[in-house]
């Protein structure tokens, strides 16, 4: 499981919320989260019980937002008050004492400030914009180091022993799923994949092949080589994406092109900052997948991010469809489990409704992706035959 990504997403969600709400409090305004919830509650009828507790539509959201906002404020006030008291005490007592004592107490006060600041930072009560930049920079440096190290890396006999427990579990889970031809939700993350030694990665690729899954031929050439799989080193950038194992399609020559052009979206937009973060690097795949008569003469111009606009759109729709299906499955399962645990209809009902809704979305996405790809390909073929035609406006009345 992408534990790191999960933690980062949760943290960044709550950190951002804390920053905005604390800033609002500092300015004496109602935090936007609470304001929004209150407006929704009022829009939905705005009922309250005799004691003032909100009821009706949007009540829970308002209460949740208020609780969070109150907690932010209470903590901030408590900490600031305590620090102020200590400073006041120091100001009173200092004139009576010698320099050494004063220096020591000042050091304690500053140390306390530092600890509070760190605590506040962890709980999202301070401005973190600088922190974010440093983090991205650190990651970029780590990434460069890793790439350099990999370039020099020689195969070690005890690679499997160097894994942490967490990594071992992850590898076992992925290997288990892939060797049975099952996809994992979510895919193993980029950082996690390249955190594994090349021998272990080769092992996983072999397991995927045994399970009948397909992994892009341009992905992780070193591991592919080690695993004895065909390697395509034509991609110009280091791959920025997780392995994105895909089930093999029904044996169909045209479908092979569709699958090779698919790329998994790396679901960590806030994390991946290292140099050269491109959207999609499947140019090599697309070129290899077009029919033999048009590899060099194909006039389909890839967009700057690689892959044509319509192919990329279709690929993204398919990715979204898969993610949605994952959630549909998970939420439906949760609904059933909660129902079995005797949670009320108000909880498992909506969860089951979501199952239906998300299923519709996934179907829509899949159908549209297919239409876009097929229609786009057909018109592209037509332009291959007659590339001098300027566009639809010239030929449609």
């Amino acid at each position, binding site marked *: 499981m992408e534990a790191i990504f999960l933690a980062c997403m949760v943290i960044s*969600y709550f950190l951002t919320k804390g920053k905005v709400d604390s800033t609002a409090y500092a300015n004496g305004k109602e935090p936007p989260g609470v304001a929004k919830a209150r407006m929704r509650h009022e829009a939905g009828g705005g009922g309250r019980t005799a004691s003032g507790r909100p009821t009706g539509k949007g009540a829970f959201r308002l209460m949740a937002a208020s609780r969070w906002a109150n907690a932010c404020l209470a903590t901030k006030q408590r900490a600031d008050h305590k620090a102020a008291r200590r400073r006041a005490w120091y100001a009173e007592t200092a004139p009576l004492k010698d320099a050494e004592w004063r220096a020591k107490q000042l050091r304690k006060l500053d140390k306390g400030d530092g600890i509070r600041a760190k605590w506040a930072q962890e709980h999202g009560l301070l401005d973190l914009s600088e922190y974010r930049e440093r983090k991205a920079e650190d990651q970029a440096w780590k990434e460069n180091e890793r790439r350099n190290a990999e370039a020099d890396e020689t195969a070690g006999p005890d690679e499997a022993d160097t894994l942490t427990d967490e990594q071992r579990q992850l590898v076992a889970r992925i290997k288990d799923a892939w060797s049975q031809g099952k996809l994992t939700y979510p895919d193993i993350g980029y950082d996690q994949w390249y955190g594994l030694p090349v021998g272990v990665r080769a092992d996983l690729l072999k397991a995927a092949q045994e399970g009948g899954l397909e992994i892009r031929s341009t992905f992780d050439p070193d591991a592919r080589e080690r695993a004895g799989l065909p390697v395509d080193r034509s991609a110009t950038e280091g791959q920025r994406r997780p392995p994105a194992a895909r089930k093999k399609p029904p044996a169909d020559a045209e479908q092979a092109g569709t699958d090779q052009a698919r790329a998994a979206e790396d679901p960590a937009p806030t994390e991946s900052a290292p140099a050269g973060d491109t959207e999609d690097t499947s140019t090599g795949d697309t070129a290899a997948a077009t029919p033999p008569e048009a590899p060099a003469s194909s006039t389909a111009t890839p967009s700057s991010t690689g892959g044509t606009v319509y192919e990329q759109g279709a690929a993204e729709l398919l990715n979204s469809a898969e993610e949605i299906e994952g959630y549909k499955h998970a939420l439906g399962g949760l609904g059933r489990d909660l129902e079995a645990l005797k949670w009320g209809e108000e909880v498992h009902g909506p969860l089951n409704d979501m199952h239906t809704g998300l299923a519709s979305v996934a179907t829509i996405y899949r159908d549209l992706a297919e239409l876009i790809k097929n229609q786009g390909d057909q018109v592209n073929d037509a332009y291959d035959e007659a590339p001098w035609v300027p566009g639809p406006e010239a030929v449609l009345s």
Partner: protein
Amino acid sequence: MADSIDATGSTDEIANSLFVADAELEAIAARNDRLRQTFENEQWSGLDQLTQARQLISTARDQLADVANKIGVGGQIVREAHQKNQMVGSKESLGRS
């Protein structure tokens, strides 16, 4: 992400995982909008279903947030009540099925 949603955690954990799911769905909705815009800019047509899908995702997100709050906040209310009134036992004995 979807892996992390299971019913065996505490109510706060479940609520958290649902909030994360909501954020993920938001990303998917944003992608939907971006794709629709891109295709519209390039004069593609017949993609009205993208609007429909966007609507369905919005509805799902609302439901998800609703459930997350019910589980998280509701769970907390009941937990605090039980912790303050430790004598109380089963729900049925309070006259509730």
